Every structure is written in C-alpha cells, then in structure tokens.
C-alpha cells in the first residue's frame, strides 16, 4: 500500500469515526492543548465536585476505576482517590474508629459485632481542587498549577520531586509516583472532562454518591445540590477554597 493511499484511508476513517468538530478537536487533544480545541473552551467551565456521604456504600469501585483509568500503582500509598470508613460510638464522639484498608481498593471487611449501636458511614476523598491551593502556592517551579477551568494539575515533566506540595496539602491527596519520581494526584480526569465525559470515579459509582460539577454551567445539578442541602468542605479552617462539597459531612471527619 503506498503512503498516499494509507493517508487517504486514515483520513476517511477519522471522518467516518469522528464527526467533524470532534475530528478537529482530536488534533488539539493529540497536541496536548485541549483548551484550544473548538469544542472545549476553558473559559466556559469551572470544575468542582459534589459528594453525597449518605449514598456511599464503600464498595471501592471509584478507587479501582480511578487506578485503572489513570494508570495509578495499586499500592495504597499511591492513591488519587480513596474511601474512609468511620465508626463512631455516640458515647465517645471524640474517638472515631477510622480505617481505609488498601485505600478501599477492595472495599471494606465486615467490622464485626459492636458492643453498642454505632454510627457508620463512608467518606470518599480525592483532591479538593481548591481555588486557593496551598500546593500550588508552594511549588518552587510552578509544576503544580491551576488550570483556567479550575482544576489543580501537575506538569510531571517539570516537577522537581521536592515534595513540598505533599507537605502543604492538608488533605493528604498527593504522593510521589515511584516510577517517575514526580508528584501525582487526582487530575479530575482532565483528559476525560475536556472531551465531555465525566470522571472515571463518577462513571463507575453505582449509587451516584460522587458527581463532577461545572459551576459555570447553569444547567448543572450542582446548583440545586448546593441550594437544597447543608453542605461542607473538609477542614474549612484551612481556607483553601476547596471546591469539593460534601452533603452530610459529620463533624468527626478530618
């Protein structure tokens, strides 16, 4: 097959598989500048996240989905997202029992019989994509940065691996990838959301406990979520401008 014919077939294939605008966008995505693609404009979005604690069943689907989608190592100390289980004895509110075995990759084992009736709930965690991120502030070279559409991202080709951002994150969302020796964290599946899809964790959540939200989209259910529910962010005293809101967040959660 000569080169011209091959190029022709590839081109026709693209047009057939992808629609016109998507094909045009593909070129930009391949060049790593999706924001320039005509189908995705960074100025049109302001990404956030909503979590309904009462809906989370601790199945760990989100953890598995995230690790598979984003090529994350399976060890618990490299987790872009994880789930914590809180077992709170009403008679001893100050000392909740918390666990997250293997970052909840395999879900949770049966906690066994309890002495007294207890309160149990699951708390999914991920990067809060803060508007005033301490991690972005402290990065010495700007390898961690705010995207114009409100996502905190890491440029792995620029990161020194100094780990200052890991110290600065109050939520424990960052880790060093031992394969690349640079920092890694939840990217809010930026490669997916800029193509109109939701994040991997939201995609696989069986109960809808997690929801990607676009604050700039007037049709987004986030507005109703924030209006109708009592919501809170993690560690509000840190004043990081967290954009991950929890419905039903218990005071025991740290």
């Amino acid at each position, binding site marked *: 097959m000569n080169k011209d014919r091959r190029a022709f077939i590839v081109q026709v294939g693209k047009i057939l598989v992808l629609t016109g605008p998507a094909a045009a966008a593909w070129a930009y995505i391949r060049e790593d500048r999706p924001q320039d693609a005509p189908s995705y404009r960074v100025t049109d979005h302001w990404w956030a996240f909503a979590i309904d604690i009462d809906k989370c069943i601790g199945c760990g689907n989100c953890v598995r989905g995230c690790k598979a989608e984003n090529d994350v190592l399976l060890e618990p100390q490299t987790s872009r997202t994880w789930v914590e289980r809180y077992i709170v004895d009403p008679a001893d509110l100050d000392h909740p029992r918390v666990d997250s075995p293997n970052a909840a990759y395999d879900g949770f084992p049966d906690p066994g019989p309890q002495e007294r009736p207890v309160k149990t709930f699951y708390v999914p*965690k991920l990067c809060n994509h803060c508007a005033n991120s301490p991690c*972005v502030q*402290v*990065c010495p070279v*700007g390898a961690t940065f705010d995207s114009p559409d409100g996502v905190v991202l890491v440029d792995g080709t620029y990161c*020194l691996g100094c*780990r200052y951002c*890991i*110290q600065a994150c*109050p939520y424990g969302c960052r880790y060093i990838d031992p394969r690349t020796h640079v920092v890694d964290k939840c990217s809010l599946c930026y490669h997916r959301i800029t193509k109109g899809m939701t994040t991997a964790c939201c995609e696989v959540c069986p109960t809808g406990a997690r929801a990607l939200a676009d604050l700039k989209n007037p049709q987004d259910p986030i507005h109703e979520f924030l209006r109708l529910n009592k919501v809170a962010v993690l560690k509000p005293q840190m004043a990081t401008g967290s954009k991950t809101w929890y419905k039903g967040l218990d005071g025991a959660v740290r």
Partner: protein
Amino acid sequence: MQGFEGFIYPNELELQWGVLIVLYPFITGLVAGAFILASLERVFNVEAVKPTYRLALLTALAFLVVAPLPLQLHLGHPQRSLEMYLTPHTTSAMAMFGFVYLWYLMAVLVLEIWFDYRSDIVLAWQRSTGLKRIVYALMALGSRNLSEAALRIDDRIGRFLTVIGVPSAFLLHGYVGFIFGSVKANPWWSTPMMPIVFLFSAIVSGIALVTLLYFVISWYRKKQVDQECADTMARYLLYAFLIDFSLEMLDLIQRIYEADESFKTLDFMVQTRLYMPHIIVQLLIGTIVPIALLGIVQLFRIRPAVRRLIYVVSCGLTLIGIFAMRWNVVIGGQLFSKSFLGYTTYKLEFATREGLLIAIVLLVLPFLILAGLAYLLPPWQEEQEPVQG
C-alpha cells in the same frame, strides 16, 4: 506496610522528608550562626573574639557550600533544580530561598572573605611558586594593588558587607524557619515563632561550632587557647541559648495552654515516639545541661583549664541538641497524620541515596572544605608577616 498506628491517610504511608532534610536546616543554621559570631567583632566591636573572626567566616563558607547538597540529593529530579532559578514560582517560599541563598553566598560571604583576605592573597601570590602561584593569582583576580588607599577601601567595603551580612544572615536562617513555619497544613510547623526560633538556635549552633573548632585547631597547632576569647564566646553562647530556650518554652507553653485541635495528637507524639529525641536529647542533654554548665561558669570562680573543659563539653552537647531540634521539627512534623488520628514511623536507612551514610558524608564534607580553605587562606593571623605597603 508496617510502622503506623491508628488511622493515617493512605498517601501518608510514605514519609516524605528524611534525614537529609534534617541536615539542611542544621547546616544552614551553622552558617548563619558562624557569620553572626564573626560580625560580633567587626560590627559590634567585641575585640575579644577576634582570634575566631576569620575562622568563623571560613566555617560559614565551608558549610554554606555544602548546604544545598542534601536538598539536591533528596530531589526526585535533581537535574531540574536549576529551574528554581530560571523559572521560579514567586509565591513559593522554597523558590525564593534559592535567591536568598545565592545572595548570601555570592553577595555577602564570598565578597566579604575576599576583601578581608585580599592583601594576604596578593602577598601569597608574590611569595609562592608553581601551581599555588596560579591559584593565588586567580584568587586575587589579577590585582596586586596593596597601596594604603586600596587597603583602606578593602576594610571599608568589608565593614559595609558585614553590616549588610548581619541582616542577610538573619534572613537566611529566618527564611529556613519560614519554609517550615508557613505550612499551615502542619500544626507542628505552623507557627510565626518558627523563623525566630530557627534564627536563635542557628546563632547558638554557630557559636558552639566555631568555639569547638577553635579549641580543636588550637590543640592541633599546639597553640594556647586565648582564654578571654573562649570566655567571651561562651558568654555569648549562654546569652543566645537563654533567648533561644525562652522562645521555645514560650512556644511550648502557648501550645499547651491553647490546646487547639491538634494538641492531643502532638502531645501524645511527644510523650511516645518523640520522647527520646525531644525530651531527653534536645531539651535535657542538648539544652538544659549546657545552659546549666555555662551558667555555672558565670556564677562561680572556676580555674581556666576546667572552664575550657566545660566549654568543650557544653559546645558538643549544644550541637547535639540543635541537631536534635532540627530532627524533631522535620521528622516529628511527619510522624503524625494530618487526620490527627494516627502516627507513622521514620525508618532511617543506611546505604541508600537518602540514608545515614550519605548524611555522615555530608556532615564531614564541610570540615574537609574548611581544611582546604584554611590551607589556602590561613585564618590565624599571628604567624603572618606584616603586610608590606
């Protein structure tokens, strides 16, 4: 995974900053402290410490050259570290430290030493032969001018540089404290006291190191230690130590009395995992004992020989105590979970890139550099022939 108790966030299973990051504030502190000791003579006209003036400057330089090495070895991508200078992120305390460091090294310390030694370098150039002659010629930057006017300019610029150097040294180590003190996510670090505690502990460690070096070098050269100099340094060490100790106690009392959300977690940590390095080594052996010893010298008449022995012991303990303080800040700040619900452990490895062996090498290296510097630029003035005009 072992070594943790209670609940810690999954990503906290790995401790991020190890012994090399302990060395970084320790070494930088010695630099700042040694320089401030040198400035006692030059700026504050404390004539008694003159025998240690040049030694203190060279010590500061030897340690400053080594200071970035532990950081460099710790980086995941050391080859990218230059980006901190080329494309610095201006809101980052760490990025700005690079410039503070460079300013201090190039604009203050190297210049000051050069102006102070310039006449010696020119004389050595004229006297030496072979390779040494070339080295001295390069160090003199080709200028042989030893006229009275030139020497006066040397002295004036040197004095000016020391005057700039004092706030610069404060900045240098205050800034190291700021790098830790500004991390609001970590209650063990996050306090406005951190820069000032770091600064005073730096002064303490610098004076202790130069005093010890002065004793060791005098013993090695079979020279008598200048008793007045030793007494004065010990007195200043005591003053600085008292301020340092008061500040740390103030911080501690404030924390205990305020007892904020992190207190129970930190208190438990200090009483268990950090008990040995914090209570025993830092506070008892490394602070209270040397302060008591130095205080005894001030209060009672003690024979000079015994005084000198006391100084050596107190300075040694002081250095151990300040090292423990850096350890407790850096390592202690990572032993508890930011969830305040659990603790982890630090396992010091031996022959790894960030292990104990490298740490020992990095601690020995400045002394070798100092020996080299002292060979080229002898800090003891009494043996030199008078400067010819």
